[in-house]
């Protein structure tokens, strides 16, 4: 049975930890444009925190509300909540967003999710089972196809279990490294780097440089390497001495709960394990 993700401490929730860890890793994107979409509660908090801490020159686009660089203090649940456009500096209509994606330049990074992800970072939003007789009909591909094909991106999941992180996805709706090795670069532009990091309520993962297999990078507080392995449906590359994801610093946490998530949406945000 699925259990709520638990950091083992009352000082911060798992969603808050994920937002903080995501924010740190956006430092390398400083100065570039990226974006988030539906259901991106945690990534929206992360981008705002990154701007306040490590990447002051980020440009970011907030999906359905069309907002560029919003500065809300009440974290919205989704990018199309009008709250997500509070304090925006500009607006980008949907048509222009798709144009940027299709060009393959301008768009630096994004946050994507899915119903399933496999050991090469391919994602499935279409469904589970044979297409003619789907056991679970998924919600559809949205913008994950072009953003995954045409840029670097981050993956995030609300749940960590062997049904979500699988050996092979039932359908590829957004491409990761396809069959591993150089198979992605044979179809996608070399400049479109593909999935960089994968965030779950249990751990952070990246991809081995040559084989492009999913690799454990750090384990979130409250869990062990063993827990991760047990709850993952594909073989993971586990480097020796893999450590824990760093806890939020006082500054990161204070900024998060005062400047970004004053309603404390992430405090009780439901994430699950198993």
């Amino acid at each position, binding site marked *: 049975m699925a259990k709520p993700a638990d950091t083992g401490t009352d000082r911060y929730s798992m969603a808050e930890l994920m937002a903080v860890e995501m924010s740190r890793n956006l430092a390398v994107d400083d100065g570039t444009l990226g974006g988030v979409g539906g259901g991106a509660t945690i990534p929206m908090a992360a981008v705002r925190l990154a701007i306040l801490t490590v990447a002051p020159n980020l440009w970011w686009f907030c999906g359905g509300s069309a907002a560029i660089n919003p500065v809300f203090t009440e974290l919205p649940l989704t990018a199309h909540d009008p709250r997500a456009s509070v304090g925006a500096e500009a607006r980008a209509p949907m048509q222009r967003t798709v144009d940027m994606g299709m060009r*393959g330049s301008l768009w630096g990074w994004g946050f994507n999710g899915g119903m399933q992800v496999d050991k090469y970072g391919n994602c499935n939003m279409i469904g589970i089972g044979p297409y003619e007789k789907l056991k679970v009909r998924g919600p559809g591909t949205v913008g994950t*196809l072009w953003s995954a094909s045409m840029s670097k991106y981050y993956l995030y999941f609300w749940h960590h279990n062997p049904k979500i992180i699988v050996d092979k996805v039932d359908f590829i709706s957004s491409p990761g490294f396809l069959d591993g090795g150089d198979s992605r670069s044979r179809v996608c532009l070399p400049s479109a780097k593909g999935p960089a990091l994968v965030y779950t309520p249990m751990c952070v993962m990246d991809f081995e440089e040559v084989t492009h297999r999913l690799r454990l990078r750090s384990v979130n507080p409250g869990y062990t390497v063993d827990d991760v392995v047990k709850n993952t449906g594909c073989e993971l590359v586990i480097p020796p001495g893999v450590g824990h994801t760093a806890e939020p610093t006082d500054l990161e946490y204070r900024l998060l709960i005062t400047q970004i998530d004053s309603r404390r949406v992430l405090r009780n945000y439901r994430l699950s394990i198993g």
Partner: protein
Amino acid sequence: MASSDSATQGGDLPPQRKSKEISLRQAGERIAAAKTVHAMNSAMALVRAGIRAGAKNLTVIPQVTSNLSVDLLIAAGCVEKLYISYIGFETYGFAPAFRRAAEEKSISVVESDEAFIVLGTRAAASGMPYVPIRRIYEATDLPRLNPLLKKVLDPFTGEETYAIPPLPGDVCLIHAQECDEFGNAQIWSGNQQEIDKAMASKFVIVSTERIVSVDRTRENVDKVTIPGYLVHAVVHAPFGAHPLVWARHYESDTAHLKAYFDAHAQGKVADYLEKFVYGCKDEADYIERVGVRQVMSLMRNV
């Protein structure tokens, strides 16, 4: 001069500009007479009117992220075919009527994505025969699942591309914050998918939270997102996006949405539809059934 004579002597008045306002019931009849519908999420009053008017066998081209407007049409058995990009309630979960109908195959699904809908709509809006895009779809299962994605050779480079077909509509359903009776409409805090949807459709219906005077439109011309020449009919529909959030007006009605999800989970969708759609003689009746106090409680912090 004759003209000034007639003006001073009270002759024929100059011709009057014609209002485009129609009733919600008339709008419902237009929707029921359509085959293909471009629908914005927030056009909930129009969707309810279409269901009441007996819409059937619709092909729906929704927003790239769609939710209740499409799910309710499916729940009421109005939909034959859906162009899918995303339909669901994000942090609240799957779209229940869509999921069941797609799994039971009582609707057909065109396996699309954001670019397919945005570019196909733009093709219909601008008269392009199709939109060619890069080979990126090759990396996914979409070309295998969507027969409308066809390979064409780029005549300039000889490279393979994918062609997205135009997606025209018979009617387009839009809800606005403010609109005058000539169709000049303001949609706030959105990402402007409505403009191409309107241009891609033969008959454009704008329901509006408020009908404003054209003087007020002129005051705020920078906020007008749909010029009235694209609009064929204007419908006064206060709370017309309920139970969804409506920028600067009301918060999403999570209690009502939960009642909708619960109705699905308990096999009582017919009861929900009877109470909140078929059984309502108009939208004022709908709001009374939702509860005036409930609706008023949503009018803060947005």
